[in-house]
């Protein structure tokens, strides 16, 4: 093998043919191109004509160059050149391939596999045998022992089949396996170690012994990924109104960002947040702010760029919907509308929590995170002991006062109560009903604003106590505590000094009440309570890339009470464990929960060779390419020679040349031609946020594809436009996603948009903040006002069931997008000038998000509240919208159909 720069030649002796090129050159130069023969009767007339010009009888230099190049290419191609041949490990013994196949290898696994294959290619070319040692254990015994030595080609299949594991490598076990293997294979070795660069032992140095043992057996080459941080996403911390996500990483020389995606059960992204990582940082944190209803749908968090089991976190019940038990006074009618003790509680909590009812005993038999007792004294004995034990284990007990509690206070209260209640503003009181004071900063309610109209007319009073003030989470304007709390063990007891219905105060009627309850539920430390030793069977497990799949064989169930201590490994890969089937409780085993913070492995012993993984293109056989190029050149030469001899006409020659040279440029030309209004397109207004534009573009592309599939309309790629700069007149429909920071358009854009609307264009404004998506894009409505202030928006009215939009193709009841339940507005008056078509459609259902189709052909954004049906309906609305834009009020004639049918019947 001969190596010249990055190119190696397998058959270098063939290059000896290159000196023959001058001989070819000489031969070609002395031979003029052969003339074409033509029999001609009128030769006599031709005979004495003076010849005006004489073509050179020698081959032109460029034709010569062409032929010589072709000849040189053939010689080079036959010499089997190889681009970037594997460096070839030093030494000449068999090759031992050591591969770290733990979770940290997953993000760049293809590059690692390519590096391993390249090493095997080199070994097979050099006729060396090879063995494979993987460092991540599997559940088979001696899994970390090197394989038998075999020809390198046979090992290739095993390396191809190798996949990263979703747990950490065990280098100590690998060392033991290697040493026992050496007893039978003691010859010289050369070793290539594809290391993930991490130290996997929590403490100490686990990689150096292995590296030293490998180096002792022969030359060692260590292949690593350079300049790439290995990231580990930790399970998030749940705060009342957000999830705090954090990651750990090995120090990276360059700073950067990591995007964390929150996904639903079907893998679609709900939200994302970005963690800033300055250069050299080993940890980062960011908040994922989501409305609680939405947060409950989040099932997993992923690092966007990394595909590994360490970059994925599954969120189980502990992060999600909390089970809340409700117990009212021991009498019937607690859920009577408007006056029942539990009526307001149920309505406030049901969107965010799973409500359970029953007796205290029944409720505590299952896992429960919050128990609400509304005016329900706790009797002495078993009940009180059970409750006390539950609170100390981490339960949150929320109690509401009332006449019964005021008479029979018990010990499960944060403060001691005075007997009887305090009446304000009653007929026997001189005091007015009290307003609420702002929440103190130390209170978990801090940040909520008590509305001015909330008044308290009756409450129970706490006995004065030095610690009363620190236990008060809310007070009245006169300073008396309204909500008090006390921490007991791992849990806490919270007391509202008023009733849970509107009897004593109008607090339950205000919007503050559900917010306070939600914070309380979010504050609870997740589920607490009974946990037996029942086995939790594996339901779905993660592979090394963080993808969930059916549990492989050999995965064992985990006892429920041992779940917290279980470390992921070959017997227990990360994933879902629990009761199979619908509705069964599932618990998540996360890899990152039990891993130490990633740190780089120690430097290998001196004399170790280094090699980079990735960035180096894989070994590539150039021979076929060179021979192909030579063939092309020869074909070109043939064409040119034929042309010179006049065997093909000039136009044909030019056409052939153009065909040969311009074929690759065809697509580029087509792209340019796409600017022409040859096809119908939906347009969208470019915003300041490229990622939002991307979503809209994906959405409109998805919709166009759907429309093309379902209807006779043929839509092209969506067009990005800037009003005032681009011509809007060729677009039937303009999609405008309003971002919160959107500014009013400039006068030129306003003029263009008004002109567009006046001449029959339709603009769809989408605030992406309506219905079930409320809170997703705060400020978008104000932005909509800013944007549309100077536009000629006609008076608006809600879309009624009779509007053409609901029937222009499909019959629709409502117009959902990614969100549902909001109101959609159209022009109220029907302008006959434009076929009664509304020039604007205003809504906030994030339709583009629902329509979006990513490169893999799936819908990347989850619908809220969700379901296939909602997405189908969203697409149907899109079809209706396109039809509305294309056909106007054509379907409005449907109103006459009954009359027409009746006439036909007669």
């Amino acid at each position, binding site marked *: 093998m001969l190596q010249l720069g990055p190119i190696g030649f397998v058959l270098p002796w063939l290059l000896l043919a290159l000196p023959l090129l001058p001989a070819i050159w000489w031969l070609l130069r002395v031979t003029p*191109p052969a*003339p*074409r*023969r*033509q*029999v*001609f*009767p*009128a*030769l*006599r*007339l*031709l*005979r004495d*004509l*003076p*010849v*005006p*010009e*004489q*073509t050179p*009888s020698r081959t032109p230099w460029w034709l010569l160059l062409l032929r010589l190049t072709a000849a040189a290419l053939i010689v080079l191609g036959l010499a089997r050149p190889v681009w970037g041949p594997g460096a070839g490990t030093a030494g000449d013994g068999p090759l031992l391939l050591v591969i770290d196949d733990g979770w940290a290898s997953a993000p760049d696994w293809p590059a690692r596999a390519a590096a391993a294959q390249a090493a095997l290619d080199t070994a097979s070319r050099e006729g060396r045998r090879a063995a494979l040692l993987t460092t991540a254990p599997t559940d088979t015994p001696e899994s970390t022992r090197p394989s038998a030595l075999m020809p390198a080609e046979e090992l290739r299949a095993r390396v191809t089949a190798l996949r990263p594991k979703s747990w950490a490598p065990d280098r100590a076990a690998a060392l033991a396996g290697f040493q026992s293997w050496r007893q039978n294979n003691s010859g010289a070795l050369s070793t290539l170690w594809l290391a993930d660069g991490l130290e996997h032992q929590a403490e100490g140095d686990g990689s150096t012994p292995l590296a030293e043992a490998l180096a002792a057996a022969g030359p060692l080459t260590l292949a690593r990924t350079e300049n790439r941080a290995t990231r580990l996403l930790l399970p998030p911390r749940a705060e009342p109104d957000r999830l705090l996500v954090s990651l750990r990483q090995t120090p990276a020389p360059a700073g950067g960002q990591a995007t964390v995606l929150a996904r639903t059960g079907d893998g679609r992204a709900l939200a994302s947040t970005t963690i800033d990582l300055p250069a050299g940082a080993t940890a980062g944190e960011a908040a994922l702010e989501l409305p609680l209803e939405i947060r409950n749908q989040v099932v997993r968090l992923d690092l966007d760029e990394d595909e590994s089991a360490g970059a994925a976190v599954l969120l189980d019940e502990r992060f999600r919907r909390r089970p809340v038990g409700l117990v009212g006074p021991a009498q019937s009618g607690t859920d009577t509308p408007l006056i029942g003790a539990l009526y307001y509680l149920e309505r406030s909590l049901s969107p965010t929590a799973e409500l359970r009812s029953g007796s205290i005993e029944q409720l505590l038999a299952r896992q429960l995170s919050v128990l609400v007792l509304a005016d329900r004294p706790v009797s002495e004995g078993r009940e009180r002991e059970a409750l006390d034990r539950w609170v100390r284990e981490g339960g949150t007990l929320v109690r509401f006062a009332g006449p019964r509690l005021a008479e029979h206070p018990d010990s499960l209260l944060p403060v001691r109560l005075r007997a009887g209640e305090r009446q304000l503003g009653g007929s026997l009181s001189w005091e007015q009903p009290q307003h609420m004071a702002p929440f103190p900063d130390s209170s978990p309610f801090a940040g909520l604003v008590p509305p001015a109209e909330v008044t308290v007319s009756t409450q129970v009073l706490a006995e004065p106590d030095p610690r009363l003030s620190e236990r008060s989470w809310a007070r009245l304007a006169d300073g008396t505590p309204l909500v008090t709390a006390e921490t007991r063990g791992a849990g806490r007891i919270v007391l509202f000094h008023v009733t849970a219905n509107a009897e004593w105060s109008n607090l339950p009627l205000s919007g503050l009440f559900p917010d306070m309850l939600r914070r309380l539920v979010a504050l609870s430390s997740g589920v607490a309570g009974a946990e037996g030793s029942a086995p939790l069977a594996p339901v779905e497990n993660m592979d090394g890339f963080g993808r969930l799949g059916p549990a492989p064989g050999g995965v064992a169930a985990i006892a429920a009470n041992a779940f917290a201590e279980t470390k992921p490994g070959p017997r227990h890969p990360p994933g879902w464990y629990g009761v199979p089937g619908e509705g069964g409780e599932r618990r998540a085993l996360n890899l990152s929960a039990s891993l130490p913070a990633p740190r780089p492995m120690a430097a290998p012993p001196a004399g170790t060779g280094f090699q980079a993984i990735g960035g180096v293109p894989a070994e590539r056989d150039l021979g076929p390419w060179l021979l192909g190029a030579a063939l092309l050149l020869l074909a070109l030469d043939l064409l040119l020679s034929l042309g*010179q*001899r*006049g*065997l093909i*006409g000039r136009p044909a020659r030019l056409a052939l040349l153009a065909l040969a040279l311009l074929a690759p440029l065809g697509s580029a030309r087509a792209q340019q031609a796409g600017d022409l209004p040859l096809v119908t397109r939906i347009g969208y207004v470019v915003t300041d946020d490229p990622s939002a534009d991307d979503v809209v573009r994906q959405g409109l592309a998805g919709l166009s594809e759907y429309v093309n599939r379902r209807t006779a309309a043929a839509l092209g790629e969506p067009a990005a436009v800037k009003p005032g700069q681009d011509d809007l007149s060729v677009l039937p429909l303009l999609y405008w996603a309003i971002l919160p920071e959107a500014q009013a358009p400039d006068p030129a854009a306003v003029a263009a948009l008004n002109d567009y609307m006046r001449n029959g264009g339709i603009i769809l404004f989408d605030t992406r903040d309506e219905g079930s998506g409320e809170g997703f894009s705060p400020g978008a409505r104000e932005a909509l006002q800013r944007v549309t202030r100077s536009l000629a928006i006609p008076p608006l009215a809600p879309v009624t069931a009779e509007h053409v939009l609901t029937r222009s193709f499909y019959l629709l009841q409502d117009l959902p997008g990614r969100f549902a339940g909001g109101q959609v507005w159209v022009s109220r008056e029907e302008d006959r000038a434009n076929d009664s078509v509304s020039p604007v459609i205003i809504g906030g259902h994030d339709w583009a998000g629902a329509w979006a189709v990513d490169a893999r052909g799936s819908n990347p954004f989850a619908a809220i509240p969700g379901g296939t049906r909602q997405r189908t309906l969203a697409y149907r609305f899109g079809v209706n919208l396109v039809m509305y834009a294309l056909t106007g009020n054509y379907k409005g004639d449907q109103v006459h159909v009954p009359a027409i049918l009746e006439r036909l019947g007669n």
Partner: protein
Amino acid sequence: MAETGTAPRATALRAEALGARLPPLVVAAERVAATVMQGVHGRRRAGQGDAFWQFRPYTPGDALNRLDWRQSAKSDRLFVRETEWEAAQSVALWRDAGETMRWSSGNLPQKGERAELLLLALASLLLRGGERVRLLGLRRAFAGRGVLPSLAEALERHAPPPADESLPRHARAVLFSDFLQPLEETRAAVGALSARGVTGHLVQVLDPAEETLPYTGRIRFEALTAGEAPLLLPRVEGVRALYAEKLAAHRAGLSTIAGAAGWRFTTHRTDAPPEAALLALWQALSPG
């Protein structure tokens, strides 16, 4: 072509091949002639029949056998049937059978084929008109309507030079050739004929490629006649205009030769329909 003395077997084969070829040629010639005939008749004559010219009232002195009894029976007067004045004239035809005529460019018929077709079609027309048709160099004269096949057969066997000692004076001659040989040869032939008082017609049959020289690039031109050296032209498109000039000069020379002898000169291209050329010839030959 008169190879009667050689192996009879070969002659028989040739005759067979000729017999297979002749009827189509004759049919084609008849068809072409009929087309022209129809066109001529439509303009010139009122009725059918070659001989009839007119009826005229009987005048004393007319021979009784010239009375047309059928016509006379239709009225009280007697009518004499007067036939057209017929003076059978000898028309000698000749076509060049040289090597240069056996050539065509592309799918067109060869020049020789076209020349034979024109000759036979013209002969057919002449025979219908009652003329006597001879082939130059052949003593026999053809007359009557049924002789066209034997004329064709004779044409196939004879390829004589354009000279005939036995041609009667004041006969007419029609020569088909490409006339690409030097002008002197043509002048000598035409001069020899016109010296005997023969008037006639030169028809130059050319292939379109000979007129336009449509070739490009580097070409070695080879002659059809044996012994002539080939000619290598490096860029044919460069000499095309010169060639056209030279061809025009050659034609002008031919025209001069014809004019000097009181002959006419026309050209015909093989990509043009033969009917047009034949009509022109027929009208040129027709008296008045």
